[in-house]
């Protein structure tokens, strides 16, 4: 996308510009949230409550 078409689409009107900033923020914060959560659950696989829950409920409590 050339700068001219970007200008026509986004920067020409201030309302569209600010609206696109807000839309970008909404999309970014959601995708960032999903991405970080996915990273966290893969990085700590086996240590999280969801992984340990069934073990503990079935009485596999070696530590306790």
């Amino acid at each position, binding site marked *: 996308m050339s700068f001219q078409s970007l200008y026509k689409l986004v920067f020409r009107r201030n*309302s569209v510009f600010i*609206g696109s900033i*807000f839309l970008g*923020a*909404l999309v970014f914060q959601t995708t960032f949230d*999903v991405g970080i959560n996915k990273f966290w659950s893969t990085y700590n696989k086996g240590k999280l409550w969801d992984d340990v829950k069934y073990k503990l409920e079935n009485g596999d409590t070696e530590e306790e």
Partner: protein
Amino acid sequence: MLRERNVQFFSTIYIIKNYNTRINTKISPHLGKLSFKNLLNYSPNLMLWGGASVVGLFVFVEGWPLFQQTLFQRIPVVGKHWAQKHSEEN
């Protein structure tokens, strides 16, 4: 005859004297610089501002469970994200 002409003459003068020589202008209803025509010209831009402010509101309301349940969950494709979020809490 003369009397009649005189009357006519004076009556003409009388009419001329009563002519309204000012420009007949009418001020349209307005509130300061705002008028209906002004608003009509601005309406596309104002609608865009409305959309922008709604999206801006969504940014700050995204983490609010009430809005997640009533609004964000019902978005067709991406709504699953907030639905999962809420089922985890329960």
